[in-house]
């Protein structure tokens, strides 16, 4: 049995760990609330962009546009959104694994990865994937301008024919305790994304200035940027949610360990007292 002093030292160390995890939980709770607010304010923008594309698609059948065209897929780029920091439970691992699973279906040489967050970069770098670009330091507080920057660079690659399809992998925020990694195809634009809404909408005769193609030309990049931005916001909220849950259970575990150790400590103390008494009684007995 460990000595009383050893147990006491362990209790102290576990206690200070639990204080850290508790503080981290509080911090991520606050950050998550902010991220959730951001999520609420970006949704209307995204929804309206999507609705507009749907209505253009439904009112102008047979429109041909490079972004919508299906071409033979040779090169693929994946945008993977994870976090810069760890200690968020399975958050980083889950999203990277989902991307990896999908990538393993294709040829490694035809794949490039654009990563957001240090953890994603390290994950794919270690596995020998080609990193096209990596963004650090923006996963916690994403800005729309960051999303535009990413969108512009991938659009250029796509139009130049350097990549033939673009996938986005990120974590959706379902609730504080549930986050789900998802994979979404960005380019060529998936028509099925728009069909559901267009059925409900009554067909109005809309004029497009300068032309339907011109409007699509402009709106599709916006749409892509808003999808990326939305994904970044969702990922930021998910990261905090995951960290909060992870830290909550870490604090719980620390509490359990402390309880356990305290029990051991008390037992050791009692054993020591009992032994002392026995010794005294034994000594007194011998003197008689």
């Amino acid at each position, binding site marked *: 049995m460990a000595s009383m002093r050893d147990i006491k030292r362990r209790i102290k160390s576990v206690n200070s760990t639990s204080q850290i995890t508790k503080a981290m939980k509080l911090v991520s709770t606050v950050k998550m609330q902010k991220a959730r607010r951001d999520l609420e*304010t*970006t949704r*209307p*923008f995204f929804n*309206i*962009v999507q609705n*507009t594309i749907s209505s*253009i698609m439904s009112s102008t059948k047979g429109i041909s546009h490079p972004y919508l065209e299906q071409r033979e897929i040779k090169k693929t780029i994946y945008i993977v959104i994870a976090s810069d920091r760890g200690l968020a439970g399975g958050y980083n691992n889950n999203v990277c694994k989902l991307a990896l699973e999908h990538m393993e279906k294709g040829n490694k040489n035809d794949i490039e990865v654009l990563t957001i967050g240090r953890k994603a970069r390290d994950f794919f770098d270690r596995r020998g994937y080609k990193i096209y670009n990596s963004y650090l330091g923006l996963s916690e507080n994403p800005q*729309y301008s960051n*999303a*535009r920057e990413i969108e512009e660079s991938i659009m250029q690659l796509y139009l130049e024919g350097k990549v033939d399809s673009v996938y986005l992998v990120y974590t959706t925020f379902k609730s504080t305790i549930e986050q789900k990694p998802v994979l979404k195809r960005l380019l060529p634009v998936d028509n099925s994304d728009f069909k559901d809404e267009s059925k409900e909408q009554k067909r*109005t*005769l*809309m*004029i*497009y*200035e*300068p032309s339907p193609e*011109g*409007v699509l030309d*402009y*709106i599709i990049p*916006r749409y892509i940027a*808003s999808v990326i*931005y939305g994904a970044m916001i969702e990922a930021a909220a998910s990261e905090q949610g995951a960290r909060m849950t992870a830290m909550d259970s870490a604090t719980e575990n620390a509490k359990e360990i402390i309880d356990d150790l305290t029990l051991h400590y008390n037992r050791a103390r009692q054993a020591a007292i009992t032994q002392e008494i026995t010794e005294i009684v034994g000594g007194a007995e011998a003197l008689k």
Partner: protein
Amino acid sequence: MANKKTLLKIITPEKNFFDEEVDMAIFRTIEGDMGVLPGHTPLTTILSIGIIKIKQGEQEKKATLIGGFAEIQPDRITILADAAEWPDEIDKERAEAAKRRAEERLAIKTADINIARAEAALKRALVRLELSQYTD
């Protein structure tokens, strides 16, 4: 038609900028300035960098609109902008600095993409400076 109003919504990725009933909205599209009154034909158009004038009765409000597009229906106008600001939200010094930077960059001509970008930056700065005059 006399006192009919139209609902104007201006939404940017970061926030709902404006959501009120208005009498008329005038803004700049890539094909020139455009005034929209209630009962307009359905129209979708692309916005340029410019100023939007919003008329509500006797009042007229002005704001910058940096890119985006507008979807016009007879009873509502929805504008999705990349950015929008009221005059008092504009940082004059920052806009001045941006203007100078863009002008410098235009003076030294490099790759085409940079020129397009610098021109857009210059336009943004000019519009912001123009609008910031209205605060006084």
